[in-house]
């Protein structure tokens, strides 16, 4: 994969939501709503970002392979952290679904490859839940309660390698059903189908950000640890020990500075010993 990273400064950027959208017409309402800027450079897939709001979006093109490749490309280009939420948004066919209604795919299958996924924390109070079948070509749906799309499976297969399963979502708006043929779908219609769901998507994003923040608190290495790591040479094992032990120490001594532990230390081993001493002498005070 070729990229021109010099054109995209990722050093201080922390995208929290990564959108993977097949068509430009599906992406347009999101680009406009979140004021995303097109990233210049030799991007294989067009990327749009708003770092202030924490959004990145990639236009993947149609199909599972494109979705999988674009997901991987966006992860690499954006340096997405493991607490980023990943969203695949697009249109889907249905048999009985109301045109324009938004669904969250909670079971996604790929009948060709016999793959099955159960992505995302479920937001049943905000959006209806459904099963999505990802197909290689458009095909009318013959079963109630099932949506047909062409990307979700490929997207989820790869997005769950960059974030946990509960932060990977597939949201689909019904574009055709047994009463309205898929041949009627055009760019204008797609734009409007997605655009009409922005309020609902905002409500979903509110909840998604909360989950993402929780995951960030769990996974992020505290700044103070980074400072200690710069001062001494830590092997990989000792680095992991330091992170774990300092977390414990911080829970016990939230108001103390880590500098107390390192001021007389000469080596990484001294630092770890100091933390161990502080933790061993604890009085197990719970109440």
């Amino acid at each position: 994969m070729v990229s021109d990273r010099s054109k995209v400064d990722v050093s201080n950027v922390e995208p929290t939501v990564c959108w993977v959208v097949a068509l430009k017409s599906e992406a347009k309402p999101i680009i406009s709503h979140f004021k995303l800027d097109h990233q210049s450079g030799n991007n294989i897939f067009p990327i749009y970002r708003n770092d202030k709001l924490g959004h990145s979006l990639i236009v993947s093109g149609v199909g599972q392979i494109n979705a999988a490749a674009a997901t991987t490309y966006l992860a690499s280009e954006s340096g997405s952290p493991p607490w980023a939420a990943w969203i695949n948004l697009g249109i889907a066919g249905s048999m009985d679904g109301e045109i324009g209604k938004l669904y969250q795919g909670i079971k996604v299958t790929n009948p060709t490859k016999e793959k099955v996924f159960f992505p995302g924390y479920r937001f049943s109070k905000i959006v209806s839940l459904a099963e999505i079948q990802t197909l290689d070509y458009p095909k009318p749906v013959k079963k109630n309660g099932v949506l047909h799309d062409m990307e979700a499976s490929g997207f989820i297969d790869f997005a769950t390698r960059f974030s946990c399963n509960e932060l990977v979502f597939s949201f689909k708006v019904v574009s055709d059903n047994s009463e309205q043929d898929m041949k009627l779908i055009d760019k204008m219609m797609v734009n409007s189908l997605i655009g009409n769901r922005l309020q609902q998507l905002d409500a979903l994003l509110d909840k998604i950000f909360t989950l993402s923040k929780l995951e960030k608190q769990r996974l992020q290495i505290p700044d103070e640890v980074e400072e200690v790591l710069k001062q001494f040479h830590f092997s990989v094992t000792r680095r992991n020990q330091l992170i774990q032990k300092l977390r414990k120490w911080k829970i016990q001594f939230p108001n103390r500075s880590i500098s107390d532990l390192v001021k007389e230390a000469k080596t990484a081993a001294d630092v770890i010993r100091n933390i161990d001493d502080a933790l061993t002498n604890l009085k197990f005070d719970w109440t």
Partner: protein
Amino acid sequence: MIDTIFIERGVVNHSRTQSIKSKFKNPTIIEVDRYQEVFNKRSQNFRIQKQNPALILAEKHDNFVLPAPSGFGLASTRNFYFSHMYNCIYDCRYCFLQGMYSSANYVIFVNFEDFFDEIEKSIKANGGQDLTFFSGYDCDSLAFENITGFAESILPLFKSYPKVDLEFRTKSVQLEPLKSGLPIANCIVAFSMMPEELAKRLDKKAPSIKRRINAIEKLAARGWPIGLRFDPLIYSKDWKQLYKGLLMEIMHRVPREAIHSISHGPLRYPKKMYQDITKLYPEELLFSLPMSENNGYVDYGVDVEKEMAEFLIKNLKNYVEEAKIFQCVVQT
């Protein structure tokens, strides 16, 4: 409230599936081939999932009844356990289930009758020996009773084998079908207990100790044999005072004749499980306290464990005879 039920295709039309489904208002129903495709999926986040678990209805095909892990049991010669359900509606911070399963979804095996057949086979195969069967090793035995009706279904079986013990391990104050049924002398209702001050911090979503003691009082008055389970014992600066207070309250409220058995066990995890749980809850005070690795287990160390066990036994001796007190140290 459960918003989604995954159902194995093979049990979609099972009467118990229909009955369980009917307990929920408009759940989304998704059919699956086997429960493992949902439950064992990679990259699941137990902690996030625990905020809104789904229900999975499945059929169990084998391993209905298993020998209890070494160190788990009471006075019986042979101890067995069975799990009609995986995972628990409570969210106790020390619980080993959060380190054992990658999913927080609830699995219910609807083919109860196959469990009963296998239990009966085990009873017959071990004829003449003292046997105890434990329910509630991978779940809380009674917390989901109003949905599953499992306890109500299994009680008649054990009523017909009065020399074989059944233990329901629970924190639930949902007392049916026990409260309205006649007590069965070999069916023990065992409550997990710890000082209220610690339970407030650790037994998340579970009934308070006060409510558990009220429930014990009611069941004891009905004549059900009561088990008290101080497992795990949680250390703190003032643990003696806290546990003494708890024991006094229990002794004051629960008649000693009602006590079938008391067991206690230390807070202890296999190393890998401890690492997994602490990764899930790195900010948790419980895991910031000193514990050390001993022979592949992470625990408070022999001295603390011994001191706590001795203290408990000493304070319980005036309440029940020592033969009713058991130490439980599971070697998984």
